């Protein structure tokens, strides 16, 4: 397997082997045996046609659902066997959804504080930290607004700030720009790339946009619940080439 930077000796963040996920008691096979390695500091893009299992894979990585079969490890620990999956979700990763998934009855500032209830911060520390994060995504002037009062791009920036609430080292983003126009999409992408570059955050991003995928350390193509090819910028030709 040809793999460039980061080198194969870099410790892995995710290691999946024979990962399967079935729905409706086996009638739907969303993942049919996925092998995947994501290393520290990588930016991995996942692409593929609709329904190929990208979101399902990301949900398994984020411990939002359990695999039907196979092994899945985060820094050597089995994700399905974690004694405290909530802590993993709140502290180790930040999850960004295509549909933002903000709480409509809470202000922007409150939404960002929600994950902090699982940390040991005081009320004022939570507030200050949330304000800081919102400042860093360019929403310092929108703290007391409700999500319904924001544009799609602004909502997604709130969601990213929420994802960073407890300082995760990994960000999982499922088509974060899928609901946005190109200008807003670019802003969100810049934000995520900056996190990856400046904070050395490991980024796993599902996207249909091959332009975005081109910026990644590696691009993984999926089809029918399987990984069909891996590309990195230095080996631009598809690996499924004979």
């Amino acid at each position, binding site marked *: 397997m040809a793999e460039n930077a980061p080198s194969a000796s870099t410790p892995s963040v995710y290691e999946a082997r024979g990962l399967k996920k079935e729905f409706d008691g086996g009638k739907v096979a969303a993942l049919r045996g996925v092998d995947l390695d994501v290393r520290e500091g990588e930016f991995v893009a996942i692409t593929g046609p609709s329904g190929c299992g990208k979101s399902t894979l990301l949900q398994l990585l*984020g411990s939002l*659902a359990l695999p039907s079969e196979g092994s899945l490890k985060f820094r050597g620990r089995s994700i399905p066997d974690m004694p405290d999956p*909530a*802590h993993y*979700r709140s502290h180790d990763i930040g999850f960004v959804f295509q549909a933002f998934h903000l709480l409509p009855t809470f202000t922007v500032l409150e939404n960002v504080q*929600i994950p902090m209830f699982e940390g040991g911060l005081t009320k004022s520390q939570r507030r200050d930290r949330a304000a800081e994060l919102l400042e860093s995504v360019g929403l310092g002037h929108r703290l007391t607004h409700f999500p319904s009062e924001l544009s799609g791009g602004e909502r997604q920036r709130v969601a990213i700030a929420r*994802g960073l609430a407890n300082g995760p080292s990994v960000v999982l983003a499922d088509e974060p720009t899928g609901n946005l126009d190109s200008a807003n999409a670019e802003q969100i992408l810049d934000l995520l790339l900056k996190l990856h570059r400046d904070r050395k955050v490991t980024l796993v991003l599902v996207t249909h946009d091959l332009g975005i995928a081109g910026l990644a350390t590696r691009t993984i193509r999926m089809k029918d619940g399987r990984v069909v090819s891996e590309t990195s910028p230095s080996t631009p030709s598809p690996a499924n080439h004979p």
Partner: protein
Amino acid sequence: MTFFTIVTRGLMRRPVRTGLTLAGISIGIAAVVALVGMAWGYEKSIGKQLDVIGIDMIVSNMGGGIMPKVFDANVEEKVASLPKIKETTSLLMQLISVEDAPMIMVSGRKWGGFTWHQLKVVEGRMIKDEHEPAVVLGRLAAEVLKKKIGDTVLLDSEELNVVGIVDGGSVVENGAIILSLAVMQRVTLNEGKVNFIDIRLQPGTDKNGVTETAAEIKKIFPEGRAVKASEVVGTSQGFRVAQAMSWSTSILAIAVGILGVMNTMLMTVFERTHEIGILLAVGWRKQRVMLMVLFESALLGLLGGILGVLLGAAGLLILETTPAIKGMLEPDLSPKLLITSVLIAVVVGLISGLYPAWRSSRLSPAVAIQS
């Protein structure tokens, strides 16, 4: 923002539903307060009456309805001869409908007995002798019946003159129609019968003395029983009926309250599946989500309880002054009852929240967030 903010926001976002649920619980709790308050009030006022008259023990028949069955008046003489007994008197009492009053105590008292002593005439005069076809009215009874001196009251088929209005020092006494035993027996066709013997014991009679006396009375009058005045309320048939009714209605009210809160919380949880999915996805522990749902339902219970206690107390106070009931009851609105009722409401809230809380924590974040 604190955890409590999140809990209250959950209730405030559905003002109509929260309001309806609060109304449901508070009506339930108001019923509890009113019914139990009445039963306890009844108990308290009877206790006070016995105290004012200075009754130590009461002998009555075991069977009967609201009032015990009648027995031969000559039982009194036999009881009076027991060593520890200082004084006895006998009565024929009935709780009946008189003219406009749906329920009123009519108390025929043996002429010369100690149950007459504490009555103070506030208007008119006392009954002249054992056979005068007349009654005196407790002050409240006079108000309820709207009678003045010179009027008559119709007891069974006989018109009796109202010759005086008296103050007996307790609600029960003041709510009664009082007449001589002989007249009462004649009017109600109970010649030679009574249904209570009131006893004063020798001074210094201890608990053992009371128990012994009760046992000896049992020998003389096997179908009857003698109870200490302080216990008489608990053993009274009427009180037990009232108590059972108030508790069974209360339990029903509580059950309705539970269903109401549980329904609201279940609806809330179903409706908020998506939001609970978000909370779980951003890393809230199941326990925290459960706690949120439980806090919400407990808070509903607390608010409903406070509202219900206010409602119930207000209702009782209004009831107390309505003409039909005036003088019949002295509601007990002790802090004990009010606090207990609020606590019941909180427990109702917690119980109703248990299943919804458990259910919400069982949701898979991926599935919940998609709903």
